[in-house]
């Protein structure tokens, strides 16, 4: 594995050439926001984004996905039998992924792909993906990735990491998948030691630019019930309107619902993103609801990310410091303040 170099303008030629083998997704600007879209032939690859509004999580866990299908037509001998829907998993390149969002996929892996159960669709989609990361030379004001075991040039989950060196890009291969992709894309110019040094400088500079820091060191040792019964939850929840924006945008939120839909006797079993912010999420058929109150649901969101996940997987917190929930919360609830409250309790 090594460091290759290419001119910035060449990136789109390389990606376009790779479209013969892969489906290629890049950040595309629509109105004010970027999102991952298939790369069109006439399109210019735009690397001027801070981050996409939504992480690439829908490319692994679609917002709505058909799981199974069935027919209720009594004339069919398979009536009422739930069957797998045919699916294909073409190889995909996701280019321009920020290191925080790649790390998020790592954090989700323990949930969807564990020794006991494997979510077949998540696993196959994740395996079919090659991630080209783009290091953050200009982190945003809400970023706090360096506090949560990540960083603007963190490599976890990525196959290639790009360093923006002004005129050119340095491509660091991190996996065999990445190596194969560089070969296919014809990127074969080795970076000299001077360019490698520049890349290191870009990285160090970026890390220094991150002004937001949160403490996480005491979360593991805290007693779960002390945190659960902490006095600050009412204050944290006070302004919350339970809109679910935070869970929708969060790259590490994965909860989903399963529903059946039938049209003219033909049905699908579908899974849809769900949110712990909604009362229906935990409502029993009997009417009992363990999280009927807003404060209980807010507490669940933060406890899950900053305590339950930490305890269950010994894998750090389930937050990558991307700052999306901080920027987009309509009532300015700031997870960095909750980190402080929980860690310093």
């Amino acid at each position: 594995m090594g460091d290759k170099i290419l001119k910035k303008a060449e990136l789109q030629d390389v990606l376009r050439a790779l479209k013969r083998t892969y489906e290629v997704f890049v950040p595309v600007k629509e109105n004010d926001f970027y999102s991952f879209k298939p790369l069109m032939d006439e399109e210019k690859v735009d690397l001027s984004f801070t981050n996409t509004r939504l992480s690439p999580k829908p490319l692994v866990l679609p917002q709505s996905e058909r799981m199974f299908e069935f027919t209720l037509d009594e004339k069919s001998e398979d009536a009422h039998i739930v069957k797998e829907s045919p699916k294909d998993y073409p190889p995909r390149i996701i280019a321009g992924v920020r290191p925080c969002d790649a790390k998020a996929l790592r954090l989700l892996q323990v949930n969807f792909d564990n020794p006991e159960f494997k979510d077949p669709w998540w696993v196959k989609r994740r395996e079919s993906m090659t991630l080209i990361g783009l290091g953050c030379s200009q982190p945003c004001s809400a970023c706090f990735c360096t506090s949560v075991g990540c960083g603007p040039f963190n490599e976890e989950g990525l196959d290639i990491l790009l360093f923006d060196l002004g005129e050119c890009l340095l491509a660091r291969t991190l996996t065999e998948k990445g190596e194969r992709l560089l070969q296919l894309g014809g990127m074969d110019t080795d970076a000299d030691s001077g360019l490698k040094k520049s890349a290191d400088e870009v990285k160090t500079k970026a890390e220094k630019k991150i002004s937001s820091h949160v403490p996480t060191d005491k979360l593991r040792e805290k007693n779960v019930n002390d945190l659960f019964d902490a006095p600050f939850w009412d204050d944290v929840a006070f302004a919350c309107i339970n809109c679910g924006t935070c869970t929708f945008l969060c790259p590490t939120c994965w909860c989903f619902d399963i529903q059946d839909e039938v049209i003219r006797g033909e049905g699908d079993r579908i899974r849809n993103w769900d949110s712990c912010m909604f009362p229906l999420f935990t409502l029993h058929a009997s009417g009992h609801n363990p999280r009927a109150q807003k404060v209980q649901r807010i507490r669940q969101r933060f406890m899950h990310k900053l305590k339950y996940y930490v305890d269950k997987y010994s894998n750090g917190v389930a937050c990558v410091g991307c700052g999306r929930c901080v920027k987009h919360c309509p009532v300015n609830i700031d997870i960095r303040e909750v980190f402080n409250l929980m860690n310093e309790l």
Partner: protein
Amino acid sequence: MTDNPYLPFPVRIQQIITETEDKNLKTFKLSFLNREDEERFVFMPGQFCEISVAGKGEIPIGLASSPTEKGFLLFTVNKTGVVTRYLHNMKEGDIIGVRGPLGNWYPWEKMGGKNVVVIGGGFAFTTLRSGIVYMLHPENRNRFKDITVVYGARSPGLLLYRQELAEWEKRDDIKMHITVDATDDPSWPYNVGFVPTVTEQKITTSKDSYALVCGPPIMIKFTQPVLEKVGFKPGQIIMSLEMRMKCGIGICGRCNIGDQYACKDGPVFSLAQLNELPQEY
């Protein structure tokens, strides 16, 4: 479990038994459409399944039959929500699905060589029935010491599995204490009184014992101190929890109690485990 853990096994409703006088509880006897599915379905008492009704959805229901009963599965279903209401109107011969077995089970290994006290209330007696049938099976009975059952419902007509209860009453290898909150039947041969009260009268020692407790929250609340009074430690009190569930395999994220998923890490927990977790269930 199928290769895809979300895919149900197809099953046929072989028989529907109305259990209670209010007709709110029916037992569904299900048989697998495919023999190989039946062979793959290996479970222990205490586990549950997602029952799948195509077009309506899935519901988590405890296995009421015992692994010692071959050729069918039993599920006793309370008519409450969308799927259960629809299921209650289905007919024998209809095709549905079963996904499982899911979750953990009562700690049968640990209970070996011990006395087992089974305490149930209302319709939360289904997986307890599975456990009792399992323990009474000739291959298993001598693995356990005394088996004592306290089972209560509001009235005689609301007790589940009445015929079996009567048969167990006649046996000498299980002590039955059936009770109802109240009855106007002068010939009622069993106890009258709430489950905690009857437990207090009949269960007088915790020596070498495990208690399996399933019932409505109010019953559990008042039974717990009774058991503690005779010396049951939190590790000796075993309970089974219910939560709203979807995936049943610890992935979809809704049934957690602290860092434990009721569907995968539970539904069976000891009181000692629950005491360590947030009280959010």
